[in-house]
């Protein structure tokens, strides 16, 4: 299963930010910084300061306020939501240093990047790599402007971690494919405009029988059914394809290349799950585990958190998070000039998942019964969010390649431990 999970990025972006604070170099790119600062000042509506649209990716599109719309259109038009994408398709055309400056300047005034979702994080980069000129011209601008929502059609009920056993079939009908089958874990499928899907075009071969196809979600024969999660939310769908006609222009790459393209896309996902994304969020600022512990449990006479057993585990968690931030920074430094995500992202994915889950477990332990509210009176908004965050967080070690799959990848690709014969 694969999807974008905004709050993991939050963890890791926070971690990145904290690492960055520790090592921020002397100001550089001063001219560009000035330009960015002025543009943001001129375009970012003050009313949005300190707000964020991160939750919208989980809960589905809220109705944009006029200011939100204005800000999305401004950033979309400028291309700075995807600052390093080529200008010719509407991207920002910036280099990495400039992109970082934009991010810093946004953060400085409490602004967020309104352009996000699976189109930005996964599909866009992949299409830029494998798509035809026509396909790029058709699909990239809509992503850049935040106008077209994409969802992912990969997993199937019988094909979870073992994606290559997927059965959704695209039958060759000359100028189009006729698609039949069922996908699951299509994130935001109920709100998406389009779907990038892995489908089978050849039943006689496993990996080589898979193709990468773009499907309109409002085409006839496409039905979605939201999946209710243990957290009560329904950010995913089951998606049913019944005799759906898909024009052949919508094939990316050639027939049978789907596995290669799809895997590449998952690397982009894993990389974005482990801190590569630029979508900053301050959701957790001032809301650290120790500060929650102080608030709910108090301190002892020596100024230490009063439950010593819990305190030890909180310190371990804080250290783990600090170590992770330093590791992300180190990975970024080492990856310089080394394009594309590496196998080491599996390590980052697992540590990120562990930290996210440990934090949530600690928070509910700290809050006691107050951290296990579901709805209604007696619980603050923050407490109710905590319950959801805890439950929803169980997904981060499952989606985007489970921790078990990542451990297989680490053992085999990094450590060279072979398959069982």
């Amino acid at each position, binding site marked *: *299963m694969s999807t974008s999970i905004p709050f993991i990025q939050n963890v890791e972006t926070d971690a990145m930010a904290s690492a960055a604070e520790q090592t921020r170099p002397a100001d550089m790119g001063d001219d560009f910084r000035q330009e960015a600062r002025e543009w943001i000042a001129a375009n970012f509506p003050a009313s949005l300061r300190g707000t964020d649209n991160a939750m919208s990716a989980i809960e589905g599109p809220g109705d944009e306020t006029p200011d939100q719309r204005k800000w999305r259109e401004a950033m979309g038009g400028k291309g700075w939501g995807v600052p390093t994408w080529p200008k010719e398709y509407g991207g920002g055309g910036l280099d990495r240093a400039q992109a970082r400056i934009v991010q810093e300047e946004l953060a400085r005034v409490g602004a967020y990047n309104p352009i996000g979702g699976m189109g930005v994080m996964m599909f866009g980069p992949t299409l830029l790599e494998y798509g035809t000129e026509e396909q790029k011209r058709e699909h990239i601008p809509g992503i850049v402007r935040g106008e077209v929502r994409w969802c992912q059609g990969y*997993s199937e009920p*019988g094909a*979870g*971690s*073992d994606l290559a*056993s997927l059965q959704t079939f695209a039958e060759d009908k000359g100028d189009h494919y006729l698609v039949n089958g069922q996908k*699951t*874990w299509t994130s935001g499928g109920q709100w998406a405009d389009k779907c990038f899907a892995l489908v089978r075009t050849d039943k006689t071969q496993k990996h080589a029988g898979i193709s990468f196809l773009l499907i309109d979600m409002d085409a006839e024969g496409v039905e979605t059914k939201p*999946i*209710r*999660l*243990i957290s*009560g939310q329904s950010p995913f769908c089951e998606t049913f394809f019944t005799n759906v006609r898909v024009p052949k222009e919508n094939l990316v790459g050639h027939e049978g290349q789907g596995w290669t393209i799809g895997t590449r896309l998952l690397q982009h996902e894993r990389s974005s799950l482990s801190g590569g994304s630029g979508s900053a969020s301050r959701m957790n600022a001032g809301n650290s585990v120790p500060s929650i512990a102080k608030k*709910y*449990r108090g301190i002892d006479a020596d100024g230490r958190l009063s*439950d*010593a*057993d*819990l305190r030890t585990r909180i310190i371990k968690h804080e250290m783990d998070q600090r170590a992770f931030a330093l590791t992300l920074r180190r990975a970024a430094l080492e990856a310089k000039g080394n394009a594309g995500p590496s196998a080491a992202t599996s390590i980052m994915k697992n540590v990120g998942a562990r930290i996210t889950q440990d934090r949530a477990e600690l928070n*509910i*332990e700290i*809050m*006691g*019964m*107050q*951290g*296990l*509210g*579901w*709805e*209604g*009176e*007696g*619980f603050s908004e923050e407490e109710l969010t905590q*319950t959801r965050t*805890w*439950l929803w967080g*169980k*997904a981060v*070690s*499952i*989606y985007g390649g*489970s*921790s*078990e799959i990542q*451990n297989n990848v680490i053992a085999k690709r990094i450590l060279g431990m072979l398959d*069982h014969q």
Partner: protein
Amino acid sequence: MAALNDEQVMLRDMAREWADNESPVTAFRKLRDAAPATGFDPEAWGAIGQMGWGGIVIPEEFGGSAFGYLSLGLVVEQLGRNLAASPLSSTAVAASAIVMGKSDKAKQEWLPRLASGEAVATLAIDEGPTHNLSVQAKVTDGKLSGTKAFVAEGDGADAFVVAAEDGLYLVAKGDGVTVTSRHMADSRSHAEVRFDNAVAEKLGGIELTAAVADRAAAVTAAEMLGMADSAFHQTLDYLKQRVQFGQVLSTFQALQHRMAKMLTELELMRSTVEGALEAIDAGRSDIDQAVSLAKATAGDTLRLVTREMVQLYGGVGMTDEYDAGLYLKRAAVLEAMWGNAAYHRDRFGRLNDY
């Protein structure tokens, strides 16, 4: 399994059978979706009353069977396996407070009704979100005032066993008692209960409060044992049928070793939980230690098993359609009730003077 006598074996088998036939997890789902105000299914509770489970720790003269805590634990464990939403443990532990207490009036008036399932009772001790025996509630001229947080089965209780500064009291639902539901992740009944000069009958001093809290923790651990055992075996069954990469999941050695580790912890958990219940039945002097051992071990092990259940089910474990999430959410609530693992570890150390 502890060494059970014939009575206990019968009781356990009967409870297991009833839970599997009459109270499977689907029954809990139905109840959750219907969301009755009392938080339980009166029909199921009636059946439990008829089987006499409400009276397992009540003397025969008051209509109980006096089988004891190991027996009560066996029944609660079987219900826990299927997440049965019954007020049995709350009622039984509240009854035990009356039994151990000094008020004949309370015994006469309440024990027969609790034994038969006519009435529901519960403990109202904690005043905050974590377990703490030092409480603020006060009694003046036989009237109790104070606010109790997260009272389990508070929505449907007819009587409350309430901890005040100076000990334990019995308060019947009625004047001066205000119950406000708290909707929690486990979809079970929890309520804030406010007492405002409510008529209170004294049961005993603060030693009784402590003794009753230990019994509550032990019985909670029994529910956790049933849950952990069931969650583990459901996971095992799932691994045996789920195919990935052309291979049944249960053949992956990394998963085998995790399951072996969990079974190992489950065995230890069972020993500590049964050990605590037996310690209570034997009236041993170190009941407190035995209970802390059980509740801490139960907390850690149930946490391990339920978290692994979601992880090993994978994507479907995240969906409400499967049961993993129900076990996870109930587990977190029980971990927090009557002292979590950290609380009981600290207590165990203090009781052992280190």
